[in-house]
């Protein structure tokens, strides 16, 4: 007996394929004994697994140990339990850094995505010397961040810099792009968007390239406007790539040390100190290894949670 349409759809939502395999399928009968072949394969993989464990797991375990001890850069110190976590979580600096990290990440992810998507859509149209533009637009991503930060410092730091001169000409003298705490945050976020949009542009361009043009023609025939086509056709089709790029950019932003440190050093008065900058300064400037590593672990935990949520979103998109 063939399955009804409703049944098939229900199976599809649960992720069960035609053959009955898939995550939603009933669990197969488990074999009680692992086969000799499986043992052999495991043995073959063992050296690589050991290497991977040593390379990846050892530093994490070591850092975990450091986070529950009061050691320094050389000595392990004494066991202090979760005192480092408690002291970090009760520190106002941690929460103000967390707040800036959130601002920096949200603006970095969505700002660069918006600019990247807009440029990817623009570059789909036939414009003269389009390939040249593509290469030029990749430059912010390609150029080493040390060079970019120096250039941005040149652009905004002093009254003789080009952008302050422009603002003065527009009747807005004394705009302190880096010296005002709020403007410094804005400048750093814009700098991050500028550095990151080429990555988003590439991700979105490759996603857009996979869209069948017939879909657009069908939408056109149905009388959809450009905006309706973008919202109803383009965005849903590229949503999987969008979520992946958001996950990656979230990780890039939260872990971004050089962009902030090279441009402002975390100042003025800690206004641009993100969690990763705070962790660095705690370990290597205050020489407090335990609390610094605890900050890094808390960051990792939050990143894992965000990644899991976004991955679930991707799976949902796949099923739909």
């Amino acid at each position, binding site marked *: 007996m063939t399955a009804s349409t409703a049944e098939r759809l229900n199976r599809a939502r649960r992720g069960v394929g035609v053959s009955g395999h898939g995550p939603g399928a009933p669990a197969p009968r488990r074999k009680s004994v692992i086969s*000799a072949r499986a043992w*052999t394969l495991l*043995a*073959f993989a*063992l*050296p690589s697994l*050991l*290497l991977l464990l*040593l390379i990846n797991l050892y530093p994490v375990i070591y850092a975990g140990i450091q986070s529950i001890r009061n050691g*320094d*850069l*050389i*000595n392990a110190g004494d066991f202090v339990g979760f005192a480092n976590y408690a002291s970090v979580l009760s520190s106002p600096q941690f929460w103000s850094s967390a707040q800036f990290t959130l601002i920096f990440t949200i603006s970095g992810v969505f700002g660069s995505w918006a600019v990247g998507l807009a440029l990817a859509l623009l570059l789909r149209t036939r414009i003269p010397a389009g390939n040249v533009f593509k290469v030029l637009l990749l430059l912010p991503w390609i150029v080493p961040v040390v060079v970019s930060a120096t250039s941005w*410092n040149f652009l905004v*730091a*002093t*009254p*003789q810099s080009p952008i302050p001169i422009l603002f003065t000409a527009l009747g807005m003298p*004394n705009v*302190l792009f*880096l*010296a005002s705490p709020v403007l*410094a945050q804005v400048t750093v976020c814009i700098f991050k968007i500028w550095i990151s949009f080429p990555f988003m542009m590439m991700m979105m361009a490759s996603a857009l390239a996979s869209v069948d043009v017939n879909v657009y023609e069908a939408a056109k025939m149905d009388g959809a406007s450009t905006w309706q086509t973008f919202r109803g056709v383009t965005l849903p089709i590229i949503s999987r790539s969008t979520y992946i790029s958001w996950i990656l950019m979230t990780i890039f932003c939260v872990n971004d040390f050089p962009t902030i*440190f*090279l*441009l*402002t*050093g*975390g*100042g*003025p*008065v*800690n206004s641009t*100190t993100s969690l990763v900058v705070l962790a660095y*300064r*705690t370990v*290597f*400037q*205050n*020489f*407090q290894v335990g609390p610094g590593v605890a900050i890094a672990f808390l960051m990792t935990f939050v990143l894992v949670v965000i990644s899991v949520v976004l991955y679930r979103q991707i799976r949902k998109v796949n099923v739909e």
Partner: protein
Amino acid sequence: MESQSSGAAFTRRGFIGLAGAVSATALLAACTTGGGSSGGGSAGVIKFWNQPWGGTTFNPLDKQITLAYKPPKGLGKATYQEIQWANFTQTYSSAVASNTGPAVSSGGGTQAFLFESQGKIAYADHLLDSWKKNGLYDDFLPGLIDTLKTKNGYAAVPYNLDMRVMWYNKSLLSKYGVAVPTDWDTYVAACKTLKSHGIYGYGTYAGAGGFTGGHNLVSHMINNGGGLFDSNNQPNCVTPENIEAMDWVLGLVKNGYVDPRSATYTAANAQAQYKALKFGMGWDTGGLASNVGGSVGNDLVVASPLTGPSGKKGALFFPNNIMMYTHTPSQKGSEAFLTYYYKNMAPLWTKNTGIGLPPLKSIAATKEFQSVPNNVKIINEWQPISKTWGAPGSNTVFLNVTTVDGTPAMDTFTQGILGGKVTAKAALTTLQNTLKANAKP
């Protein structure tokens, strides 16, 4: 079938066993320190690590001096490694922790005290005793060696002096009829005149990597008889002298004599302001004129130390130093190399490599050094009145200095003062609380 299977199984086991052995060997090799018991290198070689203390000619010349070392019989030669300033703390810490570090090195001004607290420093007492016999000890500028003395011994030996001094542009001051300030009141008056011509009178910087702004503030505190530490080497920031000094700076900020961007200026930004003739006076390292360069560099002159409201003179300085480590193939070898190095390091100054001021009187007396008037003035007028971070409690460097030198607490304090939106007492109290929380008993 069975025999085939057996054969195959034997081959796989053999292969897996071999692969496992190779992996284990590779891992063990990777995990070893490589140095065995002689972390300073094999066959008693003394590993010397030095920083880029000057321009591009510094390290090649320094390397040349190091490699020319001919050790006494039975002691090892010296090798040379240049260590960049970027992340130098990590470089040294990881090397020292893994026993792959140097036998002798320079480094950050407080580095010796950090490693001394961890039992990694070989005290220089025996070396200095030997220098008392060969005249080297008496060649050091007065009081300099004792700035590096801890309760257990000398943690390091002075190498070059990093001074914080007052500079002015002689052409600008002359052009606008401004007399060179001699005390805090005349300094304010000079700033007022300069401001009327669109020039800032208090040039400084405290942005990314720019710790000089904070150094200058502590310099003013010392000028007024204050400072950050008491005689027990514990933080003691909220004192009348310090409050008065910071009120003086806040007054300069509020009157518009300080560029409002100073809190986030880098050293390069500040130098650009000197070049653009926007900074008429300011506070910086002894190398400002050469860093600015050109015609403006030639116009920059070191002023005499100001007299503070309490009638005192004073400033902050950093006795950058060279330290010896306990992990050495031979302590005797480390000391023999350092003796050679100090006897032969004069070209680092006489050939104008850009290194800070010399610790030895004999180098300061050379005609090459004497030909730079600014340097002579710093050595003659600023060095004798300058004190370490330990002021006013002591004139030494110690472990708790690591809580202020280039730390977030000091950055926040400095940027707060230069931003002008704090009171002196509130800023000093915040600094005191942070330093106290981070201080070692």
